[in-house]
């Protein structure tokens, strides 16, 4: 019982990061869809709502790694709420996609994914460092 708890807590720091990776992967799919539909009549771009601000979620994930998932109970960001983003305004054909806007979102999403994956790598290295009694990497 006790041993199991210890093993679980080893990966507790990675779990929320894993959720963040999933969130950005899902969002990337939506943003790519928006770009692909730049000329589909009546298409309204989609985006994924964040549970709180990304910074707040990240801070939570980092400051309380041992308390388990910072985002949702099942380790996933509450990613099911897709919303229609009509900010850019529509053209004659009812298409709301703005290429610049979507491309900027895409670049932003990608760099966030990079940051999170770097953090996962760092956590894993930390674990392997601990597993090797603090020698090597």
């Amino acid at each position: 019982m006790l041993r199991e708890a210890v093993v679980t807590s080893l990966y507790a720091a990675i779990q929320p990061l894993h959720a963040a990776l999933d969130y950005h992967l899902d969002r990337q799919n939506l943003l790519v869809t928006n770009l692909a539909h730049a000329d589909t009549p009546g298409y309204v771009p989609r985006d994924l709502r964040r549970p709180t601000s990304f910074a707040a979620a990240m801070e939570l994930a980092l400051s309380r790694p041992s308390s388990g998932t910072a985002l949702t109970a099942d380790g996933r960001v509450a990613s099911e709420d897709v919303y229609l983003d009509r900010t850019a305004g529509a053209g004659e054909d009812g298409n709301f996609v703005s290429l610049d806007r979507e491309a900027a979102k895409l670049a932003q999403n990608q760099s966030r994914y990079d940051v999170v994956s770097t953090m996962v790598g760092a956590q894993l290295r930390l674990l392997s460092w601990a597993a090797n009694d603090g020698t090597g990497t």
Partner: protein
Amino acid sequence: MALSLYSALDVAASGLNAQRTRMNTIASNLANARTTRGADGGPYRRIDPVFEAVPISRTSELERNVAQVRVKEIRQDDRPGQMVYDPGHPDANAQGYVEYPNVNVVEEMANMMSASRSYEAGVAAIESIKAMARAATGIGR
């Protein structure tokens, strides 16, 4: 089918395919800007692709919103063409007027630029997906 980098790649590829189809129709319109004998006998009529969104899967709310682009139809534009007085032309009508295709070269050029930019955006999206895949495979290295 869960969402993955591959589903994103599929969607981006369908977008590129759609823009390429659009480029083909523009090339056809430009090339036939003076064609007075089209497939149905009359002057050439300009064509336009119509795109539609097809969800990759319907298993979750998210997957219903991730949609590939499909060319629904190639629609013919039925606006009347320009009538030019040229009695010597073999396709002139009884009054000596020839109907030229309803292709406006300036309009087609603008369409071409738009298609080209959209294509570039699709390529940029694919680059971004590739960078994410690299980041993901870099975990634990």
